[in-house]
């Protein structure tokens, strides 16, 4: 009889208890991965080394939660939540945070600089020395500057790395205005709508609010610290009621006291009807409005047209519920918030929809008070100043004037891309990418591929072979967040903190920090640029903390620095806000002057065409955008994505649960598995983000599932330039 220890078939597998797809990967501990890499000659044989605990910040998403890395014999064995009081992440670490070890010990990691030898996207590479790769990058940058203009180089980067500002510094010093950051794939409409009203984008006091209404901000899955934690009812205070609007029954819906599967794109109608009830029935905070706001008269006139009866037909939420919720909300106020959401942009009217939210919060006085919206605080750090070289012939940003309010550093992805494709008013021929996964994150992948096709040169800095790296000419391996000394970052909020990163282990393979890469490129671009990077990271950190050296000890001693443990309420009372009038602007004079609606005007979303469905996107707790689906530990939780469809529609289309379907939009077609579920409105379908990748360098997910970016049309909010993610209709057919 065979040795039972050598049996390959596990009982669980044999019994068929789990219906999940089985993976063949059997690499267990980090040590095993290291040994395998040592055997292949990728690294030298691991030697027994230090055992220690290291404070740092998580880098799996953008929350920057506090982490303590348990290093055992030179290997990061486990990542635990920072055990010290940490105001933002409150002693937790999510699934992604726990999976961080598999970012470092990932056989798919980029190990050394690569130079493309085949066609773009063909996946043929050769290993290069840093010297050669860096020379190639700057030679191409110089050629583009000579042949076209410095502005013909674009720099795309992402948030959460603590190192993005070095990348932006290089862009500025090189002389291009064309940096593309994440906000127009994220929260730029939200910032715009709330700032137009309050002069700032405040944070809801979720921990203390008695009544919370959330529109599509799926906080049980789209984790935001501390809101996701604070949203859960606790014995010691916390909210009494959560009303949740979402076309999908998400895990937040499961936790909410009331869930309404609102018709997508009609949230503004619901909010305007709440304002209507609160004003017509006199439930608003008279004194607060008098003292702190402008434009109430105009608002009261404007809002008359938006009755609950009218909204009911728009949103599919009964008028009596709208009326009741308005009463409950106003009764709970000022300890009540209409939660503005954050990383979401749904429709072209997104800025005005967020404006409506802001106005509703304002008229019940839920501002700068316990349980309401709180203005953020920030712990001041000394800025790193540098003198960027001056170039005479550099034009304005390519996307300038494309939308009403364009952020100079962020740009607007959809506007920029359209102009770049038309070379209007000048060509874009070079692309530097730092960890942004353009092909997965920006809607209409075909257009992004078109954009990449027209480039003379593309360089991507990343830790894995993302789709964007896959289509690049030079790929540079960055050290992961657990291998870097990163500058401290002041995270603003009602209770602000300073967080930082320090290396838990030495950077593996030939990976280098972004800072080092920037220094090397700067050196090659000339002494004037090199000078702006002429310091060590240690010097940089000391410089940032020079006014408050105690931060240094706090960071290295307990992983975090903070000054308050509770929010300070009434901080801005009687002070001038950063709006034109200095008050909360219910009516926006600023918008009126720009020819925009000074009060939110509702327009119905386009009707879903017959035999088509509205494509919805959304987050879940296992992946961060387009970057973590290949992580071995997370892949165990979700090996592929599916298309959600309501049972009634599946019957109509004669489709079966689990079968492959074709999803077709105006701009693309994808194939993935069908999941028939009551969790979605019959007029909509949903798929999770991060699958359907083009790169074959992501071995767990290559060829699996469908890409939402391939399907979503590139529509955008004309005020903020934010992508409208929910304005795409698709057809479903058997594959």
């Amino acid at each position: 009889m065979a040795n039972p220890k050598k049996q390959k078939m596990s009982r669980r597998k044999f019994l068929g208890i789990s219906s999940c797809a089985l993976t063949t990967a059997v690499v267990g501990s980090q040590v095993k991965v290291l040994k395998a890499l040592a055997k292949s000659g990728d690294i030298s044989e691991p030697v027994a080394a230090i055992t220690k605990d290291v404070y740092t910040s998580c880098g799996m998403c953008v929350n920057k939660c506090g982490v303590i890395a348990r290093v055992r014999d030179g290997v990061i064995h486990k990542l635990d939540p920072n055990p010290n009081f940490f105001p933002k992440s409150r002693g937790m670490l999510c699934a992604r945070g726990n999976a961080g070890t598999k970012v470092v010990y990932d056989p798919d990691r980029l190990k050394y600089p690569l130079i493309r030898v085949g066609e773009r996207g063909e996946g043929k590479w050769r290993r290069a020395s840093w010297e050669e790769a860096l020379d190639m990058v700057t030679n191409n940058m110089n050629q583009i500057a000579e042949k076209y203009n410095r502005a013909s180089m674009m720099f795309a980067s992402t948030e959460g790395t603590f190192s993005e500002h070095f990348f932006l510094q290089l862009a500025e010093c090189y002389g291009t205005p064309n940096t593309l950051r994440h906000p127009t794939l994220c929260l730029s409409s939200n910032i715009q709508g709330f700032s137009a009203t309050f002069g700032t984008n405040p944070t809801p006091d979720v921990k203390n609010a008695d009544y919370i209404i959330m529109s599509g901000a799926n906080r049980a899955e789209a984790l935001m610290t501390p809101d996701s934690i604070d949203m859960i009812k606790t014995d010691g205070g916390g909210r009494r009621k959560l009303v949740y609007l979402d076309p999908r029954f998400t895990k937040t819906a499961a936790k909410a006291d009331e869930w309404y599967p609102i018709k997508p794109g009609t949230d503004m109608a619901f909010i305007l009807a709440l304002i209507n009830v609160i004003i017509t029935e006199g439930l608003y905070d008279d004194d607060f409005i008098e003292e702190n706001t402008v434009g109430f008269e105009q608002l009261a006139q404007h809002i008359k047209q938006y009755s609950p009866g009218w909204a009911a037909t728009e949103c599919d939420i009964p008028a009596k519920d709208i009326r009741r919720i308005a009463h409950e909300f106003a009764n709970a106020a000022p300890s009540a918030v209409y939660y503005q959401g954050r990383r979401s942009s749904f429709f072209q009217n997104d800025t005005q929809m967020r404006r409506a939210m802001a106005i509703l919060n304002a008229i019940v006085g839920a501002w700068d008070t316990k349980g309401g919206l709180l203005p953020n605080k920030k712990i001041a750090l000394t800025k790193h100043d540098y003198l960027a070289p001056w170039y005479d012939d550099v034009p304005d940003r390519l996307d300038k004037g494309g939308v009403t309010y364009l952020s100079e550093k962020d740009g607007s992805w959809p506007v920029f891309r359209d102009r770049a494709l038309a070379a209007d008013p000048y060509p874009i021929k070079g692309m530097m990418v730092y960890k942004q996964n353009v092909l997965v994150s920006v809607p209409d992948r075909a257009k992004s591929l078109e954009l990449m096709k027209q480039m003379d040169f593309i360089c991507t800095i990343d830790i894995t072979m993302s789709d964007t790296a896959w289509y690049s000419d030079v790929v540079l391996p960055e050290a992961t967040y657990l291998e870097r000394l990163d500058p401290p970052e002041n995270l603003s909020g009602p209770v602000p903190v300073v967080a930082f990163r320090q290396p838990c282990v030495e950077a593996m393979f030939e990976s280098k920090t972004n800072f080092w890469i920037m220094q090397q490129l700067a050196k090659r671009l000339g002494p004037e640029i090199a000078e702006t990077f002429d310091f060590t990271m240690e010097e940089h950190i000391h410089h940032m903390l020079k006014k408050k050296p105690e931060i240094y000890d706090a960071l290295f001693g307990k992983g975090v620095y903070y000054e308050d443990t509770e929010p300070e309420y009434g901080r801005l009372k009687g002070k001038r806000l950063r709006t034109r009038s200095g008050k909360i602007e219910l009516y926006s004079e600023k918008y009126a002057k720009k020819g925009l609606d000074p009060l939110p005007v509702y327009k119905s979303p386009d009707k879903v065409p017959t035999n088509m469905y509205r494509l919805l996107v959304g987050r879940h707790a296992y992946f961060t955008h387009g970057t973590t689906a290949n992580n071995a530990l997370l892949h165990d939780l979700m090996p592929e994505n599916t298309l959600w469809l309501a049972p009634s529609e599946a019957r109509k289309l004669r489709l079966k649960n689990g079968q492959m379907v074709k999803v077709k939009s105006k701009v693309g077609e994808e194939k993935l598995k069908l999941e028939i579920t009551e969790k979605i409105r019959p007029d909509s379908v949903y798929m999770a983000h991060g699958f359907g990748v083009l790169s074959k360098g992501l071995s767990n997910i290559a060829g699996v599932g469908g890409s939402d970016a391939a399907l979503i049309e590139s529509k955008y909010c004309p005020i903020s330039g934010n992508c409208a993610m929910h304005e795409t209709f698709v057809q479903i057919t058997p594959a």
Partner: protein
Amino acid sequence: MKNKRFAIVLDTERCIDCKACTVACKAENDVPLGPNNYRNWVVASKLRGKYPNLGQSYTPSQCQHCSNAPCEHVCPTRATFTSSDGIVDVKEEKCIGCKYCQTACPYNARYYNEETGAIDKCTFCAQRIYAVPPRLPACVDTCPTKVRAFGDLNDPNSEVSLLLARNPSKVLKPAMGTNPHLFYLD
């Protein structure tokens, strides 16, 4: 450890099914990769009701550390044993991988670890709770919404004792007579 009786009390109302506990456990205990290998898990209940009136609950679980453990009774080599602190454990070197215990466990809390060639399961992270200074089991420590509380039932002032004194609770499959030590608040 003498005079201790470890237990976990869960408030499933707080669970958002984020699976931080599952990943934390896999990382902490070197559980081999693969969706079928795990020491703890979260069960999403069947969807209740009809659209648009729906409900769903999430129940995290793991080895129940029964005081009358069926897995221990059926083990032919006595690889499975109960420590005096109530932790049910497996002696890797004694395990012959016959998987009787896996079948006997009413909670499906055991898996066969192909890397060690032995049955593996939750140990309340004994390596953490007995470390100096002691640390909470990984699943308890990492949980964003703090579903689980861990502690010693023999200490009347421990968090678990207080939770069970103040709130009604239940155990899973009480009819099996296993006397589990994972308690679910009502």
